């Protein structure tokens, strides 16, 4: 990846300190301008392909207002990671797997405890070691849940509720999961046997790559908004929380692969859609292929909600065993679960008119502000919680959506975003040494792969604080608290 000098993108116009625009005249076929929401510094750090990709996205049928890229954007398959694209489904708007990501409903979940760092430190190795055993990580890892293919098909239609009904979690967890942990319209008859084969034994697993589970601390000086923090139950100095990041594993990947292939067959011949880059394969939302993918993709959403639900259950078990108290007594309440690889039908005002838009968010988090009726009642007054994970060395954030986020269809960043390729990171750091250095700084890490650990070295990512500051400056999300890691299970 090569960072680009802004001067070489001669068409890039500064709209404000946090908005940069490539006008629709930048490239033939662009239907709307492309906008990058970031500070100048972050824009300069983006790789060149982001410009190419975001302007390609602007050519897709039905795209409304702008093709957007969030402050943590970097190039991905077809769409940039950090890409947001809202398609007008009544105007031939398309659905594209490359705009959702293959790890469908990759997302974040946050749970608090009533423990402090002093309570946890003496048991930290034990906690992390047990989490490492109970929440399997790695490429082909299998969960402890033994499901038949038939059970799995039920699970992907019912999501986290399926798990809670079987004792994996609390009823209350569902209330604080996006879509209550079960998006309606998931249809298991639209997924292939091969997708089931890849997913049925992966419920309750972290996976590999940048997926992780972290024990973190809310240091008093890092609580940015005390009042909001209290509403979330972050009230004790140096309170310990657990945050994790994972998705729909091989299942979501297979669903995306199946439909990319199907779309490639019909896109041009049946629907006359020409895209600049084959990786933008898509179909009209309102077509048999588009609707089938939407129903299959929702199975991916539910699989991921269920996956995170079972992992939460394991985390509660581990803490409960280590401290000899129930998870209820340890105050292990879930704060929120948020997806950052999705496409959802949402109502947005466009030029004063309410429109139904299919909002693709790939490596971008929905961030509805206070009062929005799609925010769960518990948080409606304060805005939808947003969880943004940083690299394992730096920190992560809890934020809330804002009422000023309409320009990005109420979307914000999802992480810190890579600054270099995984391979470059592997060449630069050695996993084992990294583990020792982190341990010296008070962070205990367990990983299935040393090389994989090196990929996740802090400097391989953008500075999370800069990303968060950019989202705040742009008015698309508001930080509540920053969390510092003390223990990490890396996938």
């Amino acid at each position, binding site marked *: 990846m090569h960072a680009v000098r802004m001067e070489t993108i001669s068409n890039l116009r500064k709209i404000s300190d946090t908005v940069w625009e490539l006008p629709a005249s930048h490239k033939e076929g662009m239907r709307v301008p492309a906008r990058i929401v970031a500070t100048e510094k972050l824009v300069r750090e983006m790789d060149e392909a982001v410009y190419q*990709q975001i302007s390609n996205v602007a050519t897709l049928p039905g795209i409304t207002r702008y093709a957007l890229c969030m402050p943590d954007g970097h190039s991905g*398959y077809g769409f940039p990671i950090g890409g947001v694209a809202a398609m007008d489904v009544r105007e031939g708007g398309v659905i594209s797997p490359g705009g959702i990501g293959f790890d469908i409903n990759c997302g974040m979940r946050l749970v608090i405890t009533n423990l402090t760092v002093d309570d946890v430190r003496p048991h930290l190795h034990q906690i992390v070691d047990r989490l490492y055993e109970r929440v399997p990580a790695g*490429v*082909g890892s299998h969960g402890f849940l033994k499901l038949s293919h038939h059970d799995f098909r039920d699970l992907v239609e019912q999501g986290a509720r399926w798990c809670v009904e079987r004792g994996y979690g609390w009823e209350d967890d569902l209330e604080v999961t996006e879509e209550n942990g079960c998006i309606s319209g998931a249809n298991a008859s639209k997924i292939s046997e091969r997708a089931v084969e890849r997913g049925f034994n992966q419920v309750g697993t972290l996976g590999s790559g940048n997926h992780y589970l972290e024990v973190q601390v809310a240091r008093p000086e890092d609580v940015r908004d005390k009042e909001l923090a209290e509403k979330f139950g972050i009230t004790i100095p140096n309170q310990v929380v657990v945050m994790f990041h994972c998705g729909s594993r091989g299942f979501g990947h297979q669903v995306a692969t199946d439909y990319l292939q199907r779309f490639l067959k019909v896109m041009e011949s049946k629907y006359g859609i020409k895209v600049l880059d*084959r990786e933008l394969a898509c179909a009209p939302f309102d077509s048999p292929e588009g609707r089938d993918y939407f129903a299959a993709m929702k199975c991916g959403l539910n699989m991921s909600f269920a996956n995170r639900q079972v992992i939460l259950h394991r985390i509660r078990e581990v803490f409960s065993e280590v401290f000899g108290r129930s998870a209820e007594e340890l105050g292990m309440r879930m704060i929120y679960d948020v997806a950052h690889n999705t496409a959802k039908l949402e109502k947005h005002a466009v030029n004063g008119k309410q429109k139904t838009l299919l909002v693709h968010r790939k490596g971008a988090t929905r961030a509805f502000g206070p009062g929005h009726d799609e925010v769960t009642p518990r948080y409606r007054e304060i805005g939808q919680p947003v969880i943004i994970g940083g690299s394992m060395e730096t920190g992560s954030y809890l934020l809330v959506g804002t009422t000023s986020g309409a320009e990005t269809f109420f979307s914000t960043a999802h992480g810190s975003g890579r600054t270099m*390729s995984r391979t470059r990171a592997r060449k630069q750091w050695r996993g084992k040494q990294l583990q020792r250095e982190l341990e010296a700084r008070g962070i205990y890490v367990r990983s299935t792969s040393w090389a994989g650990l090196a990929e996740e070295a802090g400097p391989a990512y953008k500075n999370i604080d800069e990303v968060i500051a950019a989202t705040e400056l742009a008015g698309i999300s508001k930080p509540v608290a920053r969390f510092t890691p003390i223990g990490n299970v890396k996938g």
Partner: protein
Amino acid sequence: MTPRTPITLITGPLGSGKTTLLRHILDTRRARIAIVMNEFGELTIDIKVIKGKNVQIAELGGGCVCCSLLGEFEAAVTEIIKNVAPEIIVVETTGLAEPEALVFNIQEALPQCRLDGVVSVIDADMLVRFPELGRTTRLQIEGGDILLLNKVDLIDPVKISLEAKLREINRTAAIVRTERCRIDPELLFGLGRGEEMTPPRHTHEPESESFAFNSDETFARHCFERFAESLPASVLRAKGFVQFADGTQLFNFVAGRWELEPFESDRTELVFIGKNITRQKSRILHGLHECQIKNDEARMTNDERMTKPE
């Protein structure tokens, strides 16, 4: 000494023909091959599967197996080598994967393996129809030693120079036009473990012309390394074993990238495969003759080594 197990990586966008290539390899190659995939694909329908710790293994007949990953790639490959001892490992990546991380894994984390080559299957029709190359496709082209410009039967061969388009992204790779991935397996693979040298065959495809070289002489290592370094671009693949003063080495060359490793043999045998290379034959053979050490010189080199241990 057993040579390392060669690994061939097959990459390329969705639908470009990777599975077709695998079928072609199984149909044409006689070696014991282990195919490694993320998950079983169309190759293994209705086949009995044996479950291991890091892989599931399915017999494909003729000593070949198909393996799907359960655990980490490195652990799975180690398990395959231990349990199946294949002569060749072929890894098929998904169309969405970027090959570079896997290449790095093979080179850094699997000392018992040798990266024989990265084969990128590129759909020629796709290159014609889509004006921009996707990021993942670009990385797949960049990472290839051999680019199969596949499905050439679907395009008008006169109008466009697709090779030039690929060349812009990858300056050194061997580019071979194919229909249904029908490529000479001798060109695709280097020399594996315990394999016999296959004598050169007469073919009708210009990129598969080949000739052999045999010798009982000893070769000078530095001279041979310079020779390998300066092989003309028309040589797409060269392989065999070379006798040096300090022992015989297995030689594998693909599109400018080459390696030597210890090997058991008491003579030198090499084969060169490439595009119209019979024209270059005399030049290449001359280069080899230059590197032969006459027997008394070889003895002297050996004596030197004895008196000046380093």
